[in-house]
């Protein structure tokens, strides 16, 4: 009877518990594995020709396509600028919003609108506004006269890039704004008070006390948001079309849907995935280093 309690023996309840945990986690494990299998299938499509042999012809074909090169360029410019803008405007808005005293909930709801709308609806509103015979040009022509309209969404122009960056950044700024505002509201009043007692101006309090304290929250939000920004798809597609402002997701979509080139599409999609994985790894590694140091 004493042998029942030797090392290695687990009471029945422990065994049942472990089995229940495994059973509960199993369907999710299957779902997650399916996605890895699909990625593997894409890798296969990207690196084999019709006979099934290993080949790099799809990769070289894609690299030679100017649409792909433009896609890479825009896929770097747009997310980087967009996230930078979101950070600046979001943090600025949060600090400014701290001095709103009345009806805070109403104004917060209004501020959140671009992020809460479905993305395609938000893009429709922006298209109505920015297209050649849209409301913004109508307003400008109506106020300033003349017949020249600004081609905000002219394919291949810098104005288009700027407009798309602005539209995409404005959609996500409420997210950064809400996060930073929540972090600011949770800061204890005593820090800012102590600084003010020592004679610090409001700007100095903001820069030296509040900003460093919310930096962890902001860092995580921006890291998550950057990774999502590189996956941008709907905004360039709806506002400019694939040829007008290519990014890697739309280029892959174009290869698959318009040109029936599954291999080419897989190459582009996998390159984007690899880039995102490296980026995530880099972010996690530097975040870990920063936490250990500070």
């Amino acid at each position: 009877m004493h042998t029942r309690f030797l090392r290695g023996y687990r009471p029945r309840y422990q065994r049942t518990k472990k089995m229940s945990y495994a059973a509960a986690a199993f369907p999710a494990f299957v779902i997650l594995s399916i996605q890895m299998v699909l990625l593997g299938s894409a890798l296969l499509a990207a690196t084999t020709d019709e006979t099934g042999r290993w080949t790099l012809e799809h990769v070289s074909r894609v690299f030679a396509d100017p649409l792909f090169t433009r896609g890479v360029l825009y896929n770097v410019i747009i997310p980087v600028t967009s996230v930078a803008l979101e950070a600046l405007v979001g943090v600025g808005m949060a600090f400014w919003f701290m001095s709103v005293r009345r009806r805070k909930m109403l104004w917060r709801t209004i501020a959140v609108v671009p992020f809460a709308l479905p993305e395609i609806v938000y893009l429709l509103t922006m298209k109505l506004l920015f297209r050649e015979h849209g409301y913004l040009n109508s307003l400008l022509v109506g106020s300033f006269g003349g017949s020249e309209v600004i081609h905000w969404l002219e394919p291949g122009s810098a104005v288009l890039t700027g407009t798309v960056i602005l539209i995409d950044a404005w959609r996500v700024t409420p997210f950064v704004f809400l996060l930073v505002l929540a972090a600011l509201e949770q800061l204890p009043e005593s820090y800012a008070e102590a600084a003010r007692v020592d004679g610090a101006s409001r700007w100095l309090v903001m820069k030296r006390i509040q900003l460093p304290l919310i930096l962890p929250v902001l860092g995580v939000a921006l890291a998550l948001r950057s990774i999502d920004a590189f996956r941008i798809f709907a905004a360039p597609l709806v506002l400019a079309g694939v040829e007008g402002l290519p990014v890697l997701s739309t280029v892959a979509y174009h290869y698959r849907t318009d040109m029936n080139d599954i291999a080419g599409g897989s190459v582009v999609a996998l390159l984007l995935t690899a880039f995102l994985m490296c980026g995530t790894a880099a972010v996690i590694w530097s975040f870990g280093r920063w936490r250990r140091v500070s």
Partner: protein
Amino acid sequence: MTVGLAVLALVNLGPISLVVRQALSPASESVRWPLEAVPRSLSWQNVQELWETHDVATRVTLSAWVGLASMLCCFVVGVPAGWSLGRWRAAKAAGTGGALLVRMIPPIAIALPLTSTLIPAGLYNHPWGFGLILAHVLTGTPIALLVSFAAFRDVPPELEEAAHVDGCSPLRAFAMIAVPAARGPLAGAAVILFLTSWDEFLYALMIQLTNRTMPPLLYYYTEYGQLGAASAMALVMILPAIAVIGFLQRFVVRSSYAGGVL
């Protein structure tokens, strides 16, 4: 301060009023130049056209069905997994790491092989959207898992141990004790999953070619210049968003920070 708030209201609410204006004005208003902010005549023409010609009722039903079905499936798969990771220390890192890793994959990289797989399986462009439901479950499960993981960490395991003393098995304890204890965050996650599916664009565009849900349909209307119909449909799409806008705002911040969800 007041100026700033007024500008904020204008920039955020203005475009929506433009959609309303576009939806409720006849086509003749759109060819006038320059366009006027307040149309000279209103008409239900766009809404009528949507209802009769474009068969919008089927689209709304399909979107709602896909949203509901994918939300339920994500829950069935993700919530028990989140619970088990919350309680099982050995698998916690691997499970949450795996979920986060899968979340980082760009949708296009999954959509391309998925469409190639769905076609022989007969689920491509299915009238009841089963292929799309599968796609949404693939993307939604990591979210459900991470949110429920964060939620169940706040539920003390002592409750389940106390239940065991009374003879309750672990799975029964999960269903009858842990889930009701975490129903707040889980309800929020349900809303988020439904809305994510309702608004989802990329998979819907690639998988449902003719039996479309609303987001790709809106895109096609915009592409082919039928802005009146697009705006009317956009108003229908906004309704669930409006219904939860105040609730969502508070919840998104808290749970996205806790669960690493965007």
